[in-house]
């Protein structure tokens, strides 16, 4: 899972070092777009949920599917009260099930729409990244290949989405646990001929 580390306040890029992907319990990762304060509230709900689960001490722990279902309920019920949590949430994880290691990736929107897919994106990512992922994703990718693919999407988003910034974080979840890597930047190239003299062919009155 990858995201940039920026949080805007309207058109102002207010916070540039925000961690938008967090680990949940032992088996999942949650990433969010949208209203950051609502995401913090969701993290608090999940904290209470995982704490209760931990205190049962019954050998079971909540997996990504269960957390996805819980979040769907929360988001849908809030929307029904006309008081939504303004987020797009991405939920991913791995848990050992009866059929072995089960990988899971899904998303919940602010109105409670939820689904499971092999590639998820939020916001502009739906328009710019999903087509790339649909063309180039394969079931048997290694971690390194996946990072390269995700970086390709992040780069496109960096060029074309004006609310993105050049500081990203990658997060990984396996049966061993969650790892959220430190932030880093991608190399950008602005020397394309089309970027030179952009107003050349423009008709303007000013």
């Amino acid at each position, binding site marked *: 899972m990858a995201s940039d580390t920026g949080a805007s306040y309207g058109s102002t890029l207010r916070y540039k070092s925000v961690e938008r992907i967090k680990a949940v319990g032992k088996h999942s990762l949650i990433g969010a777009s949208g209203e950051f304060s609502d995401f913090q509230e969701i993290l*608090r709900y999940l904290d*209470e949920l995982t*704490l*209760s689960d*931990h*205190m049962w*001490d019954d050998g079971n722990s909540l997996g990504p599917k269960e957390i996805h279902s819980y979040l769907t309920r929360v988001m849908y019920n809030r929307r029904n009260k006309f008081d939504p949590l303004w987020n797009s949430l991405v939920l991913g994880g791995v848990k050992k099930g009866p059929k072995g290691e089960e990988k899971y990736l899904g998303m919940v929107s602010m109105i409670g729409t939820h689904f499971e897919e092999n590639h998820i994106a939020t916001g502009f990512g739906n328009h710019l990244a999903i087509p790339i992922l649909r063309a180039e994703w394969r079931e048997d990718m290694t971690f390194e290949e996946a990072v390269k693919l995700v970086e390709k999407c992040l780069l496109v988003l960096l060029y074309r989405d004006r609310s993105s910034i050049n500081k990203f974080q990658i997060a990984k979840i396996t049966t061993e646990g969650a790892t959220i890597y430190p932030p880093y930047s991608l190399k950008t190239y602005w020397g394309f001929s089309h970027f030179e003299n952009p107003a050349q062919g423009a008709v303007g009155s000013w």
Partner: protein
Amino acid sequence: MSSIGTGYDLSVTTFSPDGRVFQVEYATKAVDNSGTVVGIKCKDGIVLGVEKLVTSKMMLEGSNRRIHSVHRHSGLAVAGLAADGRQIVSRAKSEAASYEKVYGEPISVKELADRVSSYVHLCTLYWWLRPFGCGVILGGYDRDGPQLYMIEPSGLSHKYFGAALGKGRQAAKTEIEKLKLSELTCREGIVEVAKIIYGVHDEAKDKAFELELSWICDESNRQHQKVPNDLLEQAKVAAQAALEEMDAD
């Protein structure tokens, strides 16, 4: 030992002429008749142990837990009426959760003990509520290090180095006093607690029992958890060996 209240023991809101509240004392009797519960504060953490008397051979091993986690950093061991104990545990969990919700950090053990004892005391103030028939040993590890509290049915709560409740409490306390707790690590503490519980168990009166052990220490990352199975087995073996040695004398 049993004193007749002669009319002053009918309600928890009645004092006797010599200043006793008999109902609370009777509640304490319920605790005194239950399986032994022991808690010790070692130099790097807390160890809690329960002599869980098995009432039926049909019961699954590991069921009817007597030691519960209250938060990541604390555990509660219950002696007395188990159902009453569950109510106290439930209240403790909810106090811990609400404290964290408001103050943004895990509840300190002292504050938690305070809240639990206030709650237990509350139920000794109204005629329409009966006192809790259980005593509780609370062990936790926070910024001020490991701490052990015991809360009695009267709502009285003290901080301890070592505490015991239940049938074998007198014998257990004697054994605990022999230990050098300030030098004991939790690993060693587990074995000592197992020995104490095996030692105070009365083979004649109660047949079978299950040993439940939990700890909060540096080794468990300051989290309350059941003692890992391998250590539990080692402790049981050592305890049984010590028992045989004693019997051999």
